């Protein structure tokens, strides 16, 4: 007689052994994520020990659904390693290896000291998988193919690091939630003398607008502000690219998990220092974007959920909290670097410097950008 549960238990055992072997076969050179590989192997070994102890339950029909649920939980844990981590650590390209070291340097300088190792995976989208079970110390950073060729996207790496910061410090989420609640409470209190029916309708609209700000949307907005904080003008230009480069309507409120691009650009604009905002590079590109975005013509729902007042509140609270919670993270308050200085000699470049310099050269000396960047990227540290 055959039954499903022991069959599944045998498969799980096979998957455990296979995954362990695959992790063992991963390269372990000096530029490879050895710490991460050790963490993954340790996790698989822990699961194997538990599996062995619980195996009698998986083969005993009296345990019924509990055995199946447990096998399902084990498979989900293994799938997380197989689906997210293994593709990133098994076949690492030279660019991924180089980027890993560049990103590791950046996260340390930016104060994300909890990150002990990371791996870069050119999977097509800029993204991060920051949390492995309960820990934040071994993220997978996903980038577009040939990421370093796309200098306008470089500040996006800081946005991705922001996800790790947002998960590390719940204070950011709490503060943004409090600002959100305070903003809409004030609007509710400000409702003037209207009929009961009108008041009911207005209150429903406000509830809907407040509920629009899901945890995911708050997280994305925080990450934009984090990138703005550390990358200044270069991030502002990158945000304009994010909005205009995709052809997506700037005030689209229907993007799953994201605020409208216009709100994202706006919070970064609000986070500029007066000097940065007045700089010609930023001023001209933002003017281009204003013409493109047509925020004045946005529908009433956009105006309700993304009012400038609310976006400014988000910006202020994040900018106030960042130096308190991450005192080692330097805010970028500088202007775009001078082209003569950029073209001068240097021994090495950090990701933060490269981001500023590459965009400067692309803007001011596109004729030499190709040759300049080919040399500069060799000096990324």
């Amino acid at each position: 007689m055959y039954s499903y549960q022991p069959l599944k238990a045998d498969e799980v055992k096979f998957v455990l052994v296979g995954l362990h072997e695959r992790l063992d076969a991963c390269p372990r050179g000096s530029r490879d994520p050895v710490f991460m590989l050790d963490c993954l192997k340790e996790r698989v070994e822990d699961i194997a020990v538990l599996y062995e102890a619980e195996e009698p339950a998986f083969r005993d029909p009296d345990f019924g659904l509990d055995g199946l649920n447990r096998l399902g939980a084990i498979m989900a844990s293994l799938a997380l390693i197989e689906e997210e981590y293994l593709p990133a650590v098994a076949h690492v390209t030279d660019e991924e290896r180089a980027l890993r070291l560049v990103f590791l340097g950046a996260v340390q300088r930016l104060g994300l000291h909890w990150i002990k190792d990371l791996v870069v995976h050119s999977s097509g989208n800029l993204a991060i998988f920051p949390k492995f079970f309960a820990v934040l110390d071994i993220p997978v950073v996903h980038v577009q193919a040939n990421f370093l060729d796309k200098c306008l996207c470089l500040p996006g790496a800081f946005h991705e690091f922001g996800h790790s910061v947002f998960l590390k410090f719940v204070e950011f989420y709490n503060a943004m939630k409090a600002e959100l609640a305070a903003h809409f409470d004030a609007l509710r209190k400000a409702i003037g003398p209207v009929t009961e029916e009108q008041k009911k309708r207005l209150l429903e609209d406000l509830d809907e607008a407040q509920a629009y700000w899901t945890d995911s949307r708050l997280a994305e907005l925080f990450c934009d502000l984090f990138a703005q904080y550390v990358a200044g003008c270069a991030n502002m230009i990158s945000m304009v690219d994010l909005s205009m480069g995709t052809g997506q309507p700037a005030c689209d409120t229907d993007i799953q998990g994201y605020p409208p691009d216009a709100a994202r650009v706006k919070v970064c604009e609000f986070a500029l220092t007066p000097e940065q905002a007045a700089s010609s590079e930023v001023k001209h590109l933002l003017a281009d974007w204003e013409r493109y975005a047509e925020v004045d013509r946005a529908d009433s729902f956009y105006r309700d959920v993304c009012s400038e007042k609310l976006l400014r509140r988000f910006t202020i609270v994040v900018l106030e909290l960042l130096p308190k919670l991450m005192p080692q993270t330097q805010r970028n308050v500088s202007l775009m670097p001078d082209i003569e200085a950029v073209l001068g000699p240097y021994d090495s470049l950090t990701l933060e410097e490269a981001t500023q310099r590459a965009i400067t050269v692309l803007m001011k000396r596109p004729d030499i950008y190709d040759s300049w960047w080919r040399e500069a990227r060799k000096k990324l540290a």
Partner: protein
Amino acid sequence: MSTLGQLSGSIAQNLGRVDDLTKWLIAVRADMLGKVAALKLSAEQVVEAKKKVAEFLDALAPVLEGKADGDNQQKLILKRLVDGGRQPTDYGSDFAGISSAMKSNIKLTAEQLNKVSEVVGYLQGEVAGEVRRLRSR
């Protein structure tokens, strides 16, 4: 950019909870069946498992009885029960009773424990779905 960052946080939270709950339920079931020795579980581990499952049920019962809002996982259980044509209030009152029994070390019936396993199964299915979404993002 993608919502992977948020998905990662959600998987970490949900998978951790499901991992714990499924482990504790195995221990509680083994105790009910008199098979603790076969799984090499200590008496302390069984006591701890009962305590943790009781805490889970204490937090869940008021949500199912409409007396509290609940977190995302508790709301999911409520939704799944409603979608499945179950009476959440019945589950809520049963869970309050099961929790009391666990705390008083009163022997549970298979039927009682099956109800707990059923709702933990909803959470397990949800987290498996989240992990599957990693493939299709």
